[in-house]
């Protein structure tokens, strides 16, 4: 308990370090602006910022990225409430109730509810996060190579099973990622593999370049498919309501905080399922369930609170175990690896300053959002009509230069765009790009853990997998696999029902 409170206190004090405070303020503003522009997701924001993290250092990078994620959640709500356009998939529920409230002349109440729930949800989930991640760091002392291998496999299987509709395609994406991660020198023997005798490939393909390509560039290319028009979407900014009008939001906010943190901690889950489960739970316990979907402040609060709490929830497996649970967390670990930190259960022990920076980023951004959230929302409400052509083209060029700046190699830019093209087709046809990116990040470490671990146990597979923690983690992985297979079977059954009528071939 003393250790947990100590980290919380250190993280709170770290907010007041001038350099960190600057990154937190900048990150909060960037997050608000990027979140308010539909089409720009947190992965793209991370991808653009990621190359700069080499310059500002690991702690600054973590604080900056955390501030961006905190602010983006509220930023997504601005267009959702004011013009009925969600800034992210998780904000679809915000549109459901928030935009309805705006149309009823209660736009100020809707936006204030979003802000209030975001602040409370984020603030409370940080405490949950620290209480969860510190015990994990203690358990980490027991982790040898078998446990590490099991964790890596759990992360990959979880995201394959829970994200996406087709587990076969998800598995293909993950295996593809594992294979491309093996280009370069073998981590155990040093043998060159799949290098085509090119010296440039001996160090392997750039992991940040491939991750950014799969997660961010693919999305930009996908947006180039359609002819968007944003004329006439300017919004009038409503007034802030009286504080007592926010009291009915408290139950939903509380439920959202708890559910969001718990669901967000499951690798592959993320803010969208967290928001949905929180919304449904709040509706179940509400005295006025019939108002949900028609302008319920309680439902809106539950949704917003859960989205923000899921931020901290995702950090629990990412920083506590080294298993990123979403695409943005994959990029967070890529940012840490650029600065020389290896993801894993020992990360917190070896670099406690990263945990303090994380807490500082989350709490600091919450405070900054409290101060600037409403005034900036008023400004952004007038600027929702940015042409998406600028977003796509500028985003593509910025990511190219950013990737180039990491190793000064144009090959990395080509790899980034190549994987962006691959990711575009993967996204279109249901192959999970987060699963592929995660497998790329973890692939080399997983192989190394397996082979070194077997050496350690005299090549005995039974001894390798029968260690208690390893066996437990493998059991959880199998559970996720079963869940994923059942989901896919359900989908296939639904398809079989559709087959007689089907869609009309063209």
């Amino acid at each position, binding site marked *: 308990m003393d250790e947990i409170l100590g980290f919380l206190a250190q993280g709170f004090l770290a907010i007041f370090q001038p350099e960190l405070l600057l990154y937190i303020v900048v990150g909060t503003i960037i997050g608000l602006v990027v979140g308010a522009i539909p089409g720009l997701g947190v992965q793209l924001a991370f991808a653009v910022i990621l190359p*700069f993290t080499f310059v500002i250092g690991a702690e600054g990078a973590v604080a900056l990225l955390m501030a961006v994620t905190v602010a983006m959640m509220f930023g997504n709500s601005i267009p959702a409430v004011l013009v*009925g356009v969600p800034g992210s998939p998780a904000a679809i529920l915000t*549109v459901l109730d928030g935009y309805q409230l705006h*149309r*009823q*002349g209660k736009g100020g109440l809707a936006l204030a509810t979003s802000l209030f729930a975001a602040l409370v949800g984020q603030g409370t989930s940080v405490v949950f996060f620290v209480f969860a991640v510190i015990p994990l760091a203690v358990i980490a002392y027991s982790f040898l190579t078998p446990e590490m291998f099991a964790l890596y496999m759990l992360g990959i299987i979880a995201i394959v099973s829970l994200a996406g*509709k*087709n587990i*076969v*395609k998800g*598995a*293909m994406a993950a*295996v*593809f990622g594992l*294979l491309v991660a*093996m280009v370069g020198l073998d981590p*155990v*023997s040093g043998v060159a*593999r799949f290098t085509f005798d090119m010296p440039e490939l001996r160090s392997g393909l750039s992991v940040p370049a491939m991750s950014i390509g799969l997660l961010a560039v693919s999305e930009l290319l*996908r947006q180039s*498919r*359609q*002819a*968007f*028009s*944003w*004329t006439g979407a300017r919004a009038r900014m409503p007034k802030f309501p009286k504080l007592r009008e926010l009291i009915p939001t408290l139950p939903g906010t509380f439920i959202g905080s708890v559910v969001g943190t718990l669901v967000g901690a499951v690798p592959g889950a993320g803010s969208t399922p967290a928001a949905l489960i929180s919304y449904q739970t709040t509706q179940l316990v509400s005295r006025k369930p019939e108002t949900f*979907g028609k302008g319920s402040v309680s439902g809106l609060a539950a949704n917003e609170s859960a989205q923000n709490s899921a931020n901290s929830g995702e950090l629990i497996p990412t920083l506590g175990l080294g298993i990123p649970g979403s695409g943005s967390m994959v990029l967070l670990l890529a940012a840490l690896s650029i600065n020389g930190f290896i993801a894993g259960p020992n990360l917190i022990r070896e670099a406690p300053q990263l945990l303090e920076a994380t807490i500082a980023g989350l709490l600091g951004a919450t405070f900054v959002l409290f101060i600037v959230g409403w005034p900036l929302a008023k400004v952004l409400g007038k600027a929702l009509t940015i*042409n998406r*052509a*600028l977003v796509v*083209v*500028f985003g*593509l*060029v*910025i990511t190219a*230069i950013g990737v*180039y*700046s990491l190793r*000064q190699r*144009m090959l990395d*830019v*080509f790899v980034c*765009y190549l994987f*962006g*093209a691959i990711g575009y*087709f993967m996204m*279109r*046809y*249901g*192959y999970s790009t987060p699963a592929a990116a995660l497998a790329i990040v973890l692939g080399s470490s997983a192989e190394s853990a*397996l*082979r070194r671990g*077997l050496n350690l146990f005299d090549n005995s597979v039974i001894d390798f997998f029968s260690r208690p923690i390893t066996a437990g983690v493998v059991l959880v992985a199998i559970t996720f696999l079963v869940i994923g297979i059942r989901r896919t079977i359900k989908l296939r059954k639904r*398809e079989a029902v*559709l087959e007689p009528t*089907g*869609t*009309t*071939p063209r």
Partner: protein
Amino acid sequence: MSDDDSKPEAPAAATAESALEEGPLIPPVEETAQGVDNRFDALGAVGFVGIGLLFIGLAVAAPKSEFTHDAIGPWAIPVGLAVVLIALGLTQAIRSLRFFRRVGRIGPHEGAEDEPGYPVIPLRAIGFIATCLVYPLLIPVLGFLPTTLVVVAGGLWALHFRRPVPLVIATIVFTAAMYFLFVVVLSIRLPSGFLGWP
């Protein structure tokens, strides 16, 4: 306000006709299909099978070391993964082809769907992909500034950002800002081409 109207109003969308009005260089637009083409779905799965075969071929052809490193060695895991990829790819390809035979060309959408209300121009995405792959090859030859100016202007024009003055201003301001940020502020050397420009 009507309680029945729970769907939010979508922003004004460009219609297929207005897109075509932009000029003959715009390829015909198509309405967003309800799903994906099962043939391309099968082709994608076959592509993964091809990747698996490539990795197996490279592993088999690679010279093997005489020294024993560990029980598994450097090639067993990649070959094993490639076999798994081939098996999964064939499974998915067969499934897609079965769908094609039973339901027809269009099957259920399992990936990211297009946003409703906005015309789809698939060839434009292909054009962007081609440009993206050529861009890093041209920069070392022509230099960062000339290449980026052309690519940014071309990209904005392709995405219907075509009013001449805003197009030129946006292109020049953005390129200059990127040069300032990366070269001047972050001291990163960007490739200079045969003209000697950065």
